[in-house]
Every structure is written in structure tokens, then in C-alpha cells.
């Protein structure tokens, strides 16, 4: 039975790897998503800018 056991072990060894299962585990690393952004500050600063421009021009006009 000794050679048979040896044969079994050899056969077992040949069955190990490389297996498809191994390769599927490899994690693919994706780049992050890009989201579109809106901001209340953009709008807010535009409002302020508007009044600032207005006040400057009106001051200039007053002078």
C-alpha cells in the first residue's frame, strides 16, 4: 500500500492550484466617483457681490 499512498499524495499535489478560484479573489481597485457640487455660498457670495458692486457704483455716482 505504500506506493499507492505515495501515488495518491502525488495526485493530490497535482490537483492543488492553480485554480480559477484563486484568480477571482483579486480585488479590482476602481477610481472614485465624481459628484457634481452646488453651494449656497456661491449663490450667497454672488448676491453679496451684487450689492457690493451696487454700493460701490452708487458711491461713485454720489461722488
Amino acid at each position, binding site marked *: *500500500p*505504500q506506493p*499507492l*499512498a505515495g501515488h*495518491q*499524495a502525488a495526485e*493530490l*499535489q497535482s*490537483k*492543488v*492550484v*492553480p*485554480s*480559477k*478560484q*484563486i*484568480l*477571482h*479573489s*483579486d*480585488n*479590482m*481597485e*476602481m*477610481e*472614485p*466617483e*465624481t*459628484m*457634481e*457640487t*452646488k*453651494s*449656497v*455660498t*456661491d*449663490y*450667497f457670495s454672488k448676491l453679496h457681490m451684487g450689492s457690493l458692486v451696487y454700493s460701490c457704483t452708487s458711491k461713485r455716482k454720489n461722488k
Partner: protein
Amino acid sequence: RMEASCLELALEGERLCKAGDCRAGVSFFEAAVQVGTEDLKTLSAIYSQLGNAYFYLHEYAKALEYHHHDLTLARTIGDLLGEAKASGNLGNTLKVLGNFEEAIVCCQRHLDISRELNDKVGEARALYNLGNVYHSKGKNVASAGTHDPGELPDDVKNALQKAANYYEENLTLVTELGDRAAQGRAFGNLGNTHYLLGNFRSAVLAHEQRLLIAKEFGDHSAERRAYSNLGNAHVFLGEFQTASEYYKKTLQLARQLQDRAVEAQACYSLGNTYTLLQDYEKAIDYHLKHLVIAQELHDRIGEGRACWSLGNAYTALGNHDQAMHFAERHLEISREVGDRSGELTARLNLSDLQMVLGLSYSTNNSMMAESQVADTSWNGTRPRVGRRHSMENMELMKLTPEKVQNWN
């Protein structure tokens, strides 16, 4: 007074989100919505940011809800740029939720409006988003079957080819615009698309560009991603030594960035690569490292994989006792996590190992050992008759000769 209050709350929400505290930011934005405002453009900005905050918090149903509100509002007030942005964000969210067809419609709307407004930056971003949707769509269908990269059904191939085309178109545009960061993202995802399509040389070229740009920016996370993806591509080119070099760089950066999960993944990849190189001692070393981290992170699935891999590597070295130990642990974990195919694999491995161990025991006149081994490993759930059945299945698990040739 109430108007100012809504604005103040929203401003605090913006500040918190920018500082990286989306959870607290959400509370302020929701408070701002509660207070309310007559100004629909401000409200639109609040909805949009709430949607994005929920997106980053991975609460996609909420993200969907707010981006949808934003879209409706933008259309109501006739804000075309706002509509484009809301459509893009809605598209990205639908993609994550797996609703690819609607995602495509939204991202296409983002693209159409951007072109109408001659907004090149918006156009480029919409092209990138569309690439991402088609990539996810392809990957989603592909993962339903068991294909290696490169062996794909037609619908998968079509989706991935479209993704590649959108990334290429995006690359042309962002190159014109001189936006290196956007180029980096496009190269990374283009590389991954080529990888899935089985164009491993093109994948390598794209990831090399990604790596170059990551280094320019000192972006260590992107650098680590590039190394990992380069490792994966080289495995499929059969260049295992090169793959191992890239995985080692991934491991080094993962440790530097103190990301245990990524460190575990890198160890696992290295274990697999050394298995392919038939250097089983090194493979065991890395799989053990992976096992330790998987246990630390309470990742039972990862632990099961580690045990399976260790069982294989010990079998290859002829250390059948250790192989048996890990095959038993693999069986136990597969049962626990309800992994049916893992359970079957573990049973087959155990039955094979028992054969070898049983035969060697019997030569030592230890018949008791033989029956003991067999009994404990079956846990009494299956009678001896089951064994022949599993041995027949074993034949089906064998690799086709050409596969073995490819990977040896």
C-alpha cells in the same frame, strides 16, 4: 430672520461636509430644510449637498431621494446647469443601486446639457460617469457567471467596450483641458475595463499612466490602487514575478496608510502569486498574515478563504496534517457563512486528504486512526456512502489541461 437662519444652517452644513464630517453636515442641512426658504436656488443647493452627503455615507436610498428633489426643482426654475448637475448625481446614485438603464438616461442628460451649454468641464465629467455606468453594468452581468477576465458573453463585452470608449473620449477632453487629476481617474478605470475585457497589455499601459500621475500628485491611495491593479494584470499575463513585485509595493503602502483591510488583501494576493510561482513556503507565510488580519477584522469569509488557500499550500508541501487542520476549518466556516460551493470544496479536500492519511496510517497498522479521522471530519452528518459520491464530483473539479498549462 427665518431666511437668514436657513442660510446659516446650510452654511454650517457646508462647512462640516467640507471638513469631512458628513454626518453632522446632514443634520444641519436637514435643519435648514425644516426651516425652509423661499429661495429655490438655495433650496436646490441644499438638496444637492444632502444627496452627496448621503452618497458618501453610503445611504443611497436617501441620496436618490434628495438628488431627485434637486432635479425636479432645477427643472421647475429652468436652471439648465443645475439640471445637468442633478442628472449626473442621480445617474451616479442609480448606478450604485444597480439601476443601470435609468443611470444611463440620467448621465446622457448630463452630457447633452453640458454640450448644449458648451460646458467642456461638465461634458468631460459626464463622459467619465457614463464610462463608470457601463463598466458597472458589464461587471455586474459578468460576476453573475463564473468567467475569467477575457471570457465574456456578448452583452458584457458590449457594455465594457462602451465603457472603454467613454473613458477614451473623456481622456481626450481632459487632456485638452490639462486636468491631470481627471486623467489619472480615467486611466485607472480604463485600465480596469481593459483588464475585464482581457486586454491585459493595454491594462498595464493604462495603469502605468495612472501610477505616474498618482506619483505627480503624491496621492498614496491612488498609487497603491495602481500597484494592486498592475499586480492583477501581470498575474493574467503569466508574469508572476513582476506581479509579486507590484503586490509587495501595495503591501508596503497599505502598511504606511495603516489600512488593515487593504493590507490583508495584499497579503492574500501575494499568497496566491507565490502559489502560482510554486513557492509554497512564501505562500503560506502570506496566507497566514492574511488569516491573522481577517480574524482581527472579524471577516469570516476572508478567514475561510485563507484556510482554503493554506490547506492547498500545505497539501502541495506534503504536510497533510496541517492541510487537514485548515480544510476542517474551511469546512466549518463555509457552513457558518452558508457558502455551499465552499462547503463542497472543503468536503472534497477532506475526503482526498483522508484517503492519503488513511492509507499511510494503515501502513503503520493503525486502523483505529483511519476510522477516527473519517468519523470526526464528517461530523456524523454523512454516512460513508457519501464518500464515493464526493469522489465522483472530484473528477469534475479537475482543471482542464490547457488551464494548467497556462498557469504553470
